[in-house]
């Protein structure tokens, strides 16, 4: 049994049906209040002052680093770097580490269902370095299989960078198995956890993940904050992309500079302190419910959603077999944006478009879809309401025009 307190989410009081959780999630009161508490009561900078409120801010901030480490099963809190989001984390990996690590002729494996932030940095790197990007072929359900991965690996493959759960297809990838294949071939595994860390249990040590990235705002936390996990041996080699306060030991007019150790070296400037504190509360909230319970509940909810939508003739579903709570669909003959605007008339929020996965169109032969993405606070009643509205969509243009 899962226990959900919808009243913890103030925004849900407005009869809002929110199905765009892959884009961002709603925030519970405890997260918002923790951030307010910092600003109201101890809003000092961290690591800078010998006075009580600065020490309290520093302690709270570092405490969340420990919490994040524990939440994702990292061995050591020094392996956790706070960034501005999963995008920032991936850019740091690509330009702060891979740029120096990769050699001429090395290959990076991606898939066509990756989010833009796990494709474009690599494309940019390939412009300045002689590396090759290869896309691992997906199966007919647009899912990644181990066989296909193994076939694509060559002696030049040095990196596999993939999402644990993709943001449109929503396939849940077997990271443990992929990791074994990667490490048997001396390949570094970069995991985009933006869509997985909020929805299922993550264990970087157990799965032997080299780099993991995710965003706070997709897991009940605030915007503007993300996490970069890296194995200590790799983070030690990572070059900072930003230089300034907080990250240096000392510097001289002669140009002599020495930087602090990880992770501080990689967090130049004043970090988003309130946001980090908010993320701490978000993790507490998720752990209280239980990540396994969240995963199973969403899986069941997706099944229910699919079973209901399948019964509506003019609805086309693109990824009904995948386990995560993401479902892409269209109403036959209706442009996805018109469908989204129609649903909005009934206070139902869905996303229309290509969902930042612009190369996925090569796979599914369709450019634009409506995407429903569930979280644990969604209910069967909300799905019933959606079904009711879609069932009477014959008058869609009457409603939106």
């Amino acid at each position: 049994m899962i226990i959900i307190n919808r009243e913890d989410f103030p925004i849900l009081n407005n009869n809002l049906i929110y199905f765009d959780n892959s884009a961002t999630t709603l925030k519970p009161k405890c997260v918002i209040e923790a951030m307010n508490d910092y600003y109201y009561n101890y809003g000092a900078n961290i690591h800078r002052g010998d006075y009580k409120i600065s020490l309290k801010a520093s302690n709270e901030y570092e405490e969340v680093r420990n919490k994040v480490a524990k939440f994702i099963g990292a061995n050591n809190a020094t392996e956790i770097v706070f960034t501005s989001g999963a995008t920032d984390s991936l850019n740091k990996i690509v330009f702060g580490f891979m740029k120096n690590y990769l050699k001429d002729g090395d290959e990076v494996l991606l898939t066509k269902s990756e989010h833009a932030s796990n494709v474009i940095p690599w494309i940019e790197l390939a412009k300045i370095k002689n590396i090759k990007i290869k896309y691992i072929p997906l199966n007919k359900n647009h899912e990644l299989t181990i066989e296909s991965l193994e076939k694509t690996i060559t002696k030049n493959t040095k990196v596999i960078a993939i999402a644990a759960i993709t943001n449109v297809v929503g396939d849940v990838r077997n990271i443990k198995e992929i990791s074994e294949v990667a490490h048997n071939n001396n390949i570094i595994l970069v995991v985009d956890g933006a869509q997985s860390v909020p929805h299922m249990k993550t264990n970087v040590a157990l799965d032997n993940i080299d780099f993991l990235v995710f965003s706070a705002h997709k897991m009940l936390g605030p915007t503007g904050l993300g996490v970069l996990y890296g194995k200590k041996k790799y983070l030690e080699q990572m070059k900072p992309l930003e230089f300034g306060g907080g990250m240096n030991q000392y510097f001289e007019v002669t140009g002599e500079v020495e930087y602090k150790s990880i992770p501080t070296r990689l967090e130049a400037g004043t970090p988003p302190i309130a946001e980090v504190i908010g993320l701490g509360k978000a993790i507490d909230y998720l752990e209280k419910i239980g990540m396994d319970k969240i995963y199973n509940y969403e899986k069941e909810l997706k099944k229910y959603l699919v079973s209901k939508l399948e019964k509506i003739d003019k609805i086309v579903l693109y990824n009904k077999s995948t386990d995560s709570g993401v479902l892409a669909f269209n109403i036959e003959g209706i442009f996805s944006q018109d469908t989204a605007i129609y649903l909005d008339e009934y206070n139902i929020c869905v996303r229309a478009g290509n969902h930042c996965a612009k190369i996925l169109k090569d796979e599914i032969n369709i450019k634009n879809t409506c995407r429903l993405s569930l979280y644990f606070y969604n209910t069967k009643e909300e799905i019933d309401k959606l079904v009711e509205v879609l069932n009477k969509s014959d008058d869609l243009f009457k409603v939106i025009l």
Partner: protein
Amino acid sequence: MDGELKREIIIDNYQNPYHKGLKNDDGYYKANTNNESCIDNIDIQLKIENGIIKDANFDGEACAISTSATSIFLRKIIDKRVEYVKKLISNYENLINEKEYDEELLGELMAYDNIYMQPNRKHCALLPVDTIKKILKQLEEE
């Protein structure tokens, strides 16, 4: 124009658009506008001879508002002079942006006179004119 008629004009031009499908002919000026929202994507081609729009076609994937507006717009500018097109564009932009416009000149385009009430759809309605403006700019730069 009453609501029912407006809806009819829009739906008719969306479901059975005029001038849809590009011609494989080098004699056309072409432009594409990817909507800022990154969904709508329309190509327009115009054949312009001696300052007159001789032919106009479009293609692409777009919502009901932008598809229908493109259909209506192209229908209105064929066999017209570039100066007329410019005048039509500025009046149409004024309509969408709640400024003064010539109702008679706009004709069927008056179907979009309530779009300002849905600010997030303004750019859909403006998609055809943004694209045609790109073509007129090419023409001027020649």
